[in-house]
């Protein structure tokens, strides 16, 4: 397996994440799709780190995980509040702001 395979895999994961965001209505799932995008990046970082022979990419992966965790905290807080208000986790539901 060369780096390219990993990168292609990561690209596929990223794409899945992107399309997940685009097509899923449930906010939690959308959010998970975003996490998928971040993790796709992680995979790429790690693969490239291997290819380049330095550890930068590996290190970054840790940072990204931390950031992702922080994002989860913030995101879930927001989503929960909205869920409490609207009794729905659909991202299409809040649609007062437009045009």
């Amino acid at each position, binding site marked *: 397996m060369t780096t390219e395979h990993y990168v292609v895999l990561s690209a596929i994961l990223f794409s899945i994440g992107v399309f997940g965001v*685009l*097509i899923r*209505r449930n906010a939690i799932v959308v959010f998970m799709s975003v996490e998928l995008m971040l993790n796709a990046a992680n995979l790429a970082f790690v693969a490239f780190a291997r290819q380049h022979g330095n550890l930068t990419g590996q290190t970054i992966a840790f940072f990204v995980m931390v950031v992702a965790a922080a994002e989860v905290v913030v995101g879930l807080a927001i989503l929960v509040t909205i869920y409490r208000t609207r009794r729905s986790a659909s991202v*299409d539901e809040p*649609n*007062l*702001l437009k*045009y």
Partner: protein
Amino acid sequence: MNLTNSLTSFLGSATIEASNVDPTVNLPVAASGVFSFMWLLLALPVLGSALLLLLGKRADKWGPIFAVLMVCGAFVVGLFLYFAMLAESANDRPVNLHMWDWILVGNFEAPIGMQLDQLSMVFVLLITGVGGLIHIYSLGYMKDDPDKRKFFGYLNLFIAAMLLLVTADSYLLLYVGWEGVGLASYLLVGFWQYKPAAAVAAKKAFVMNRVGDVGLSIAIMLMFVTFGSVTFTGVFDAAPGASESTMTWIGFALLLAACGKSAQLPLQAWLLDAMEGPTPVSALIHAATMVTAGVYLIVRSGPIFDAAPAARDAVMVVGAATLIFGAIIGAAKDGIKDVLAGSTMSQVGYMILAAGLGPVGYVFAIFHLLTHGMFKANLFLGAGSIMHSMHDQLNMRRFGALRKVMFFTFLTFSSGWLAIMGVPPFSAFYSKDKIIEASFSVNFWGGLAALVGAGITSFYMTRLWTMTFTGKARWTEDNQHPHESPKVMLFPMAVLGLASLAAGFLLAGAIETWLAPVTGFEEGHLPISSLAMESISLTFVLVGGAIAYLQYRRGVPITPPQHVSALTVAARDELYGDAFNEAVFMRPGQWLTRSLVFVDSKAIDGIVNGTSAAVGGLSGRLRRIQTGFARSYALSMLAGAVLLIVALILVRM
């Protein structure tokens, strides 16, 4: 100054060596002595008009008298100048008074200066003389008008402008006088502006004059471009060097100007309407002086027309056509002033015709201008006198038998009547016959027109005279007591009546010598003897007069007959001059104006407003893309990413 000597020469017996005068280089000398006071000519009437108009009601009491004094003062100044000029030798007579630099831009120079030569002198005396008389007459005529002060203010303004016109030393300053008299005419025609007809007539006169002024403007511009100068001396000095085509253009432009001011075809239509003004105005402006400014312009520009035969021929044609045109109108109108206006048009046509003959005719154009100034003023004042007593009735069908009640007016009027017909020894016999002769010596058709015109003139004037003074009274009920006018009106009429009688006889011959340095003079060569010519024209006059007398001596119906010849119908409608203007200029103009207003608001402004509406509409549509759904926003971001990639790849390729 030897007064006796001067008077003799005024009466035509002075001998002036016309032979050693070169008309093309008639350079004025700088004014000195009496001549350095010639600015008074302008200053007096300017002062009069300024005081009367600016002081307002404070000048109501003394204003009219003051105005009369100012004009008479100007006349006196004019006389002094005339005698001073007589004392000089013919070559030294033209004088120039430089007053101040007016416009100096680059090589464009126009001074404010007066130039007085023999030609101007004639005009100065005519304007101040007849003007003074008419001022006096107006004292009576306008006695009860609440705005009398303004009237005299305007009259003084007119005198000032007219004097400026004839004494200016450059075309540009002439232009100032030219439009100045136009303004005065506007104010005076529209003097009773609460009458819509007067207001409209005033505007019409000014606007049509402006069409002529376009010609004058263009002529001046051409002169500047060609000669680098707009002064008379500068232009005439360089004139021989210019090409014929340039001169022809200038000539045509000047002719256009003259047509406007002198109511010649095709710009004749304003004159009849201008009769809406008070009658003294008609006498002064629309008979004696202003309308003859065109003649002055053409004669003054002799050196230009000398070099432009085509333009000169055009002048002749215009004059000939107008003299017939005006005469026909005069023959069909029922309003006394309308007849006189048509007559004026026609008589000025004679002058223009003469001016179009070149040096053969210049002198007679001016001669006729002078005599016409007197007899036509006389006729108008007579008409005014009649109107005065008839409660402003104008319709001759309501007149008749006035001889009995207004005998004095009848006398002066008759003098004018005989003068205009050219019955010897009345004045026009000398001036008009000379024009007919000179015309025949240059061009048969021109001569024929002048001859036929003389016949028609005789017809319409006799018609007027007969309908007004003879036969039975056709006065309406409310006009039962016509009366003679006050003395203050009769005096000017008397003077002018005498002048109509004697002016021709006194001036004949002398005027030719007097004007020769300015205009040059050539004797015309007739195929037949002068006496034979005079007989022929006299025959025309007598026949025309006889027809009219026989036809109208029994009186006329009060309402004009409806079943008349097509020519009469046309002439009553001023030969469709107004209809023509209306169809060719006014209606298309109104249509154009209306459509341009539409175009401006709908097309040009429409583009602007349309653009803004389109942007607004675009905004309204684009807003809908902002759906409020987070996922569609994300899609848009993805699209943006694709856009970026595509752009980058395209650049790479």
